[in-house]
């Protein structure tokens, strides 16, 4: 073969710029000519390159310092914008952003996402609303840029927004919505610039969604990827979150069958977690360990640890405070102090109802009912059931949950309540997901849902 393809043609081929007749000409030659194939390999960058020493030159360092200055300024500006935005009623925020004279920066989106993450323990619905606002802002930035003739969408930001949306939807029990958001996130992560923080968070959220869907093997795989990234970047706190969640996966899948392993993971998570960085996560990890130790019969160890949980500032917040009290009630119950457990559970039910956590409140109430039922205090069970039904009704507990709860109330009234039914109801409420809720079905045949 006398003639060969030019470097320019081969480079354009590698860049996807060869079309039509030229594509025919280039491929008819390339498929037959080894010399051009080797040249193509060189030009397409698929051949190993010489590994000469790398030096940091001043130009690069200056550029990076400039970027840093820009990032600091953008962050300060964005904080002011977001502060102003959050002072507006939620319904007006999008309008304010859309009509603002200046184009919101990518940093505004990041700040919105940070704010959303900070609120997630107290108000996941507000977190969801802020993440949606962040997503709309990315699109609004893209629209304005498109009108100026700039065609750039920040794919990394889209990935971050969709990942957070998926997380909040999962927390709010909208599993189908969470999966859809994560599908969007996945496409953007794939197309993005490999932003490490976004990818780490993506795998953490993916693991959470698989766990909520009870696909424990997939949850474990995603969690392992998250932990590998955390380990590679020296992020011990994140690694601690990963270990803590792995313990949750194991506990959910194996129940009490793997308690020693779960306890070991809980201890390891506490070693890695930084209490000053996410105090509530640390408090939750401690509380989880107390619960697991108690389930394993190590009551005194659990009680000692519980004394470390109670004074933590994070546990003074109501939602966490009542969770901790719930754990304590189980401990004292195991020790045989039923009166103390009864008092504590009353407080837990009231406290969780007050903060709007109705399903856990119902779960705690069923624990209290079980405790009284076993003590043969049937009249008190009946009174408890009758007293709490209007509370759940007025607070708008989920329809299916209300139906199941009504069944408990009627069984108590009719004196047909059994220990087996109480256990079934506790399991039902423990696994209850509002968006995927199914009607309660008694396996023991002790009851059916009233029509």
């Amino acid at each position, binding site marked *: 073969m006398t003639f060969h393809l030019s470097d320019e043609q081969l480079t354009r081929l590698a860049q996807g710029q060869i079309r039509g007749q030229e594509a025919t000409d280039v491929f008819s030659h390339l498929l037959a000519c080894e010399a051009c194939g080797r040249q193509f390999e060189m030009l397409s960058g698929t051949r190993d390159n010489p590994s000469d020493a790398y030096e940091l030159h001043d130009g690069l360092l200056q550029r990076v310092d400039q970027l840093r200055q820009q990032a600091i300024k953008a962050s300060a500006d964005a904080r002011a914008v977001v502060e102003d935005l959050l002072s507006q009623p939620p319904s007006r925020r999008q309008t304010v952003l859309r009509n603002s004279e200046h184009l919101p920066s990518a940093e505004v989106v990041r700040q919105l996402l940070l704010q959303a993450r900070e609120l997630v323990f107290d108000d996941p619905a507000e977190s969801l609303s802020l993440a949606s606002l962040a997503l709309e802002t990315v699109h609004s930035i893209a629209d304005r840029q498109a009108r100026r003739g700039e065609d750039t969408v920040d794919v990394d930001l889209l990935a971050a927004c969709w990942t957070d949306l998926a997380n909040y939807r999962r927390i709010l029990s909208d599993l189908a919505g969470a999966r859809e958001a994560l599908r969007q996130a996945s496409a953007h992560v794939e197309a993005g610039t*490999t932003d490490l923080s976004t990818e780490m968070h993506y795998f953490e959220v993916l693991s959470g969604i698989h766990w909520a869907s009870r696909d424990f093997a997939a949850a474990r795989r995603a969690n392992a990827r998250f932990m590998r990234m955390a380990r590679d970047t020296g992020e011990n706190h994140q690694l601690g979150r990963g270990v803590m969640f792995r313990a949750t996966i194991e506990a959910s899948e194996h129940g009490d069958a793997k308690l020693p392993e779960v306890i070991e993971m809980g201890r390891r998570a506490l070693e890695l977690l930084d209490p000053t960085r996410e105090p509530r996560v640390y408090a939750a990890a401690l509380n989880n360990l107390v619960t697991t130790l108690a389930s394993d019969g190590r009551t005194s160890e659990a009680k000692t640890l519980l004394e470390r949980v109670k004074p933590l500032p994070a546990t003074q917040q109501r939602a966490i405070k009542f969770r901790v009290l719930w754990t304590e009630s189980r401990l004292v119950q195991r020790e045989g102090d039923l009166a103390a457990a009864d008092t504590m559970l009353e407080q837990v039910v009231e406290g969780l109802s007050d903060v709007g956590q109705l399903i856990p409140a119902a779960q705690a109430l069923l624990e209290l009912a079980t405790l009284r039922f076993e003590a043969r205090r049937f009249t008190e069970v009946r009174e408890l059931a009758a007293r709490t039904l209007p509370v759940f009704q007025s607070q708008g507990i989920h329809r299916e949950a209300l139906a199941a709860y009504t069944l408990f109330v009627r069984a108590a009234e009719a004196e047909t309540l059994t220990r087996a039914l109480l256990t079934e109801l506790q399991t039902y409420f423990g696994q209850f997901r509002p968006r995927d809720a199914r009607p309660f079905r008694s396996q023991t045949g002790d009851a059916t849902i009233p029509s």
Partner: protein
Amino acid sequence: VPAFAATHSSVGSLLRDCLPQVRSIFRRFRIPPGDRDDLVQEAALALVRNYDSIENPGAWFVGCLKHKCLHYWRSRRRRLYESIDTGLLEAVAPHSPDSPERHLVRVELRAALGRIDKRCRIMLEMRYLMDCRTAELADAAGCQPTSVGKLTSRCLGALTKVLNGDRRSA
């Protein structure tokens, strides 16, 4: 102002401290000299942006750079395969008028496909020479339609080796 401003007078000092690891990563991942600065810059920018939530900036920067190097080759290969795919589809387009060159491409393509493994050969023959759609490819490969892209990409990798002159080992 992010904590970064208070704790580091310059990103440069941090980057200099990490230089031995940076060199080792570039050696390990065989990053072409022309692209190394871009990767360092991207990782440094990510570091600056995430500084407030990072525990160990040095380790994070090195981990981030490693991650970027890994993806560098993945995306580069993906782009190359996409280019070859588009070019080949153009070169053998069934609706274009036939010509001696087009005939030659088909003959040579058949010969090149004969040098890759059977499953890939069938996939690519169906794609380039029989104008089959994704659902048919999924049927033939016994996989989900969503997996066809990944499989095609792997097969294109093998074909690219042949195109690259690596005629024996592909």
